[in-house]
């Protein structure tokens, strides 16, 4: 299955570099398993209305080395539950990157993204053209190409379907 372009609004911009994603739900909530409960807590300290204003297909934007530290999975589970379809950041921390790609959650490393977009701009990640477009302002930037295995994993919908689809080496 071809990788579908991300197309949606920038629902939030994390300006901070080396952002620790655990902050999205708060460290004390990191062990919560219930996704409804997690989603209700997500982004509360950044924008209390986040859950109400976000729409399926929206993306979030991050700074350099997004996902630094010991990232856990619940924060992004919570954001996906709210409809967030992917993350575009200046660059990513490898542990976070691997973890989320294996969940089939699109990540796009695009140097300069914070200067390209403002909150609520409509953007498109065109995987084949290799660019992120700001549809609201009519500007675009190239992103760093995905490794082949990462792309196949996203196309398959995550690690388990990927391994099933390509059982041999």
């Amino acid at each position: 299955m071809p990788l579908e372009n991300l197309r949606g609004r920038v629902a939030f911009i994390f300006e901070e570099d080396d952002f620790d994603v655990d902050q999205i739900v708060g460290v004390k909530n990191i062990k919560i398993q219930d996704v409804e409960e997690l989603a209700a807590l997500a982004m509360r300290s950044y924008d209390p209305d986040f859950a109400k204003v976000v729409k399926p297909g929206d993306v979030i934007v991050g700074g350099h080395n997004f996902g630094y530290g010991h990232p856990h999975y619940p924060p992004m589970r919570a954001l996906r539950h709210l409809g967030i379809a992917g993350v575009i950041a200046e660059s990513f921390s490898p542990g976070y990157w691997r973890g989320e790609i294996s969940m089939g959650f699109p990540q796009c490393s695009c140097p300069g993204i914070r200067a390209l977009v403002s909150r609520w701009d409509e953007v498109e990640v065109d995987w084949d053209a290799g660019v992120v477009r700001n549809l609201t302002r009519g500007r675009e930037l190239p992103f760093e190409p995905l490794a082949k295995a990462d792309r196949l994993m996203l196309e398959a919908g995550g690690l388990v379907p990927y391994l099933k689809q390509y059982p041999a080496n």
Partner: protein
Amino acid sequence: MGYTITEKILARAAGLPSVRAGDEIMAKPDFVLAYDFPGYTDVYFRQMKEEFGIDKVAEPERYAIFIDHMVPAATPKEEELHIGTRKWCAENGVPLYERKGIGHQVAAEVGYATPGAFVVHFDGHISQLGTFGTLAIGMRRNVLEAFVREKVSIRVPQTVRVNLHGELQPGVMARDVFHHMVRVLGPASCRFQVLELGGPGIDTLTTEGIQSITCLAMFTGAITAIVNPDEKRLAYALPRARKQLDPVFSDADAEYAAVHDIDLSGLEPIVVIPPTPANTRNLSDYVGLEVQAGYLGSCASGRLEDIEIAARILAGRQVATGFMLHVIPTSQEIMAEAARRGYVSTIVEAGGFVSSPSCDYCFGRIATMTDNQRAVSTGTLNVKGRMGSPDSEIYLCNAAAVAASAIEGRIADPRKYL
């Protein structure tokens, strides 16, 4: 143009004459390691059977599992997880190391740090096997690939070379070297790359000290760290090695993404202030800050030289009233030797609490702090909530600084006790 040690190891693991940074390859890990943890191993074991129809792993000697978290079990559920792990290992003929210590350290002790080998784990701190010229990468959930297939997909990483020069001053330890590297190079300086340590200064560090540095590599963004092994480290690793491989070394004209030089002789003890491992400061700027807890242990620092220096500082002194000092040797082998040398009795007589090897103090299962408390720690991380309440604070420092702070109940400079 020559090759890095990383390129050489991956070329052999991929069965190719040579590979270059940037190549996308399939490589066969010599060893696949993991510790049991809810949501990881229990899920892999189930998925292997149910999703991939694998009843038994091929080549079980390539795999090893460690029980080092939740030791001892505090709830029936935790023990249930361990039972499942023991059962899977027995059924598959996979070696299981239980209660031997923190797996990343035990892995070196029992021969998985084979020089020249390619090793995968889900946990990134396995990078410390790089001390012995082993390429050990934490793949997070993707390590499932290594459980269900012979090979893993990997993009050959570029390497950042850091040359060390000079020698550390008393009271300054290998941990400080790593934290200093984060300070001067930056928390993203080696992103998706391998951190290769070298230079004349590396020979002045102990093998244990180098393990401290390679353990923490992920906080420079590196996917692992590696050192060209010298005679001393080969003498440790080769007799234990589980596989006959020729050690490999970077060529003198290997291509690096960047080369940095660091002078060890000018370093002071460092403190990493909350809430991220990127906040490096000189310890001297925080001397006098009240602290209630101290943790000496973890896969980064709980080895003999850490316990030895703490014992030296605590000998004939007492831990401050109300201060909780936890000293957790990294492995049973280390604990037994620390006991034989009298370090354990010295620390206990000073009022320290010494417990058997376990990851639990470091990852927060044994949560020791409540709101508004503050700790000095040799753990891996200082994020909020790592040692209990999210409203407590962790200051990372070397083992000597933990011991000195335990005496004063305040962050203290260890140099005055040495």
